[in-house]
């Protein structure tokens, strides 16, 4: 629809405040998922204090950022987690938080069910224990399902089950769907990026070309599945999947990390995409509105090597983070380009160039879940 295209073009120029703000509260995590986009594990001593975190919520109110996506690390391990939830709620800032579910108890599930303006997203990466635990660690599947049961028993209502689509679980989409139905939950599928610890595991985990085609067909057949607008690179296969269908990095999307650093998107925790820090004068609003990086990202982009491809308008060249961390030029094809151009570009690299994330909060040794 032309009306949508013009709106998309306007979004590319950036908005006065983000639509989709992700805020990671801590790098601490009791799991050690092998694809963790933020290489989380250990808390960073520079993490924002409770007062600083509340100041960010105040800024959201001032900027009319109506809701925030909270993640981590595992956000529930922050001792002030519920205090921050209460504060956001009292300021009428909607919260959706992502959790591995290990810290949800029968008791706090009732409390969470009583908070009006809250979405919860429980992550699993396999529809069965073996597939999930291979990525997220032993015991994590059972813990996530236990959390879902607690939420159901507390009459929380419709929570979300969030799945990163991998080569190993791409054949389980119907099973995920059935699991969501069983809990009256919504299914959310998102794209695996070679970010964080995913830099090292992407080769083994990312879906095959055939799986991508099947996934596209499945998403078209299940339009009520949430995708976080993350699969727009698949749009070269046919009619667009519902969503904004553009890279929103620095335009409508950004990340505030646990130490207050602002990145263009949650998948590019790297110095090249660091726009500033909320602790600097002017706070988050100043970073969003004036950072040089974000100004650049809002300039019209060139299709580069994709200019001659008839599908560029559909896929927009794909995901910036996926290109960056596989060493591909940002104005060329996505490594998972459905027409195969990315694979060819990866093969043509004289040396496999893989960029490393700037920070790594991984624990030296994977932690056993039962030890918490």
């Amino acid at each position, binding site marked *: *629809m032309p*009306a*949508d295209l*013009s*709106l998309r073009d*306007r979004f590319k*120029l950036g*908005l*006065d*405040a983000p*639509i989709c703000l992700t805020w990671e509260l801590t790098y601490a995590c009791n799991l050690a998922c092998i694809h963790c986009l933020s290489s989380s594990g250990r808390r960073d001593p520079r993490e924002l204090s409770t007062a600083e975190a509340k100041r960010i919520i105040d800024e959201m109110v001032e900027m*009319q950022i*109506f*809701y925030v996506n909270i993640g981590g690390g595992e956000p529930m391990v922050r001792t002030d987690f519920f205090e921050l939830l209460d504060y956001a709620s009292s300021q*009428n800032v*909607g919260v959706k938080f992502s959790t591995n579910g290990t810290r949800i108890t029968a008791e706090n599930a009732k409390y969470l069910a009583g908070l009006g*303006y809250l979405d919860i997203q429980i992550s699993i990466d396999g529809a069965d224990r073996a597939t999930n635990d291979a990525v997220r660690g032993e015991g994590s599947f059972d813990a996530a399902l236990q959390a879902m049961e607690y939420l159901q028993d507390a009459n929380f209502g419709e929570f979300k089950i969030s799945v990163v689509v991998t080569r190993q679980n791409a054949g389980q989409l119907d099973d995920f769907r059935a699991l969501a139905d069983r809990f009256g939950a919504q299914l959310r599928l998102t794209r695996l990026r070679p970010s964080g610890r995913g830099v090292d595991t992407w080769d083994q985990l990312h879906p095959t070309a055939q799986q991508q085609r099947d996934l596209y067909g499945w998403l078209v057949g299940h339009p009520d599945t949430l995708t976080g607008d993350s699969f727009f690179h698949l749009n070269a296969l046919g009619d667009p999947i519902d969503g904004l269908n553009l890279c929103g990095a620095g335009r409508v999307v950004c990340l505030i990390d646990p130490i207050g650093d602002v990145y263009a998107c949650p998948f590019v925790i790297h110095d090249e995409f660091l726009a500033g820090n909320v602790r600097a004068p002017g706070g988050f609003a100043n970073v969003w509105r004036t950072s040089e990086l974000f100004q650049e990202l809002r300039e019209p982009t060139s299709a580069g090597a994709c200019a001659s491809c008839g599908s560029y308008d559909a896929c927009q060249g794909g995901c910036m983070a996926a290109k960056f961390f596989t060493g591909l030029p940002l104005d060329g094809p996505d490594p998972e380009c459905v027409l195969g151009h990315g694979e060819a570009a990866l093969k043509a690299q004289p040396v496999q160039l893989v960029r490393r994330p700037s920070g790594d909060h991984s624990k030296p040794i994977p932690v056993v879940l039962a030890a918490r």
Partner: protein
Amino acid sequence: MSLSSAAEAPSFDLARGWTLSPEVALRPEKFGALAYHYGNRRLVFLKSPELVALVEALGSFDSVSEALQANLAPERHASYAQALARLADSEVLVAR
């Protein structure tokens, strides 16, 4: 994109008075505004500053027709009435 995909609400009566829902906040943007509904948590895009002005003024008129006459040239009434109907459909507007 709610604005372009929602069908025209059949119940939208131009002779009635409508107003911005008290549950909706408008955030001004260069292209127009974002409308956020705290009740149904839907985000809707108002794609022109003229539409934003019309929505903001709507509550002070006894009918949509009067608001259209006061704010826009006659040739634009039909398309803006349609846009308002869609906003009513997404509960951004409520009948007075």
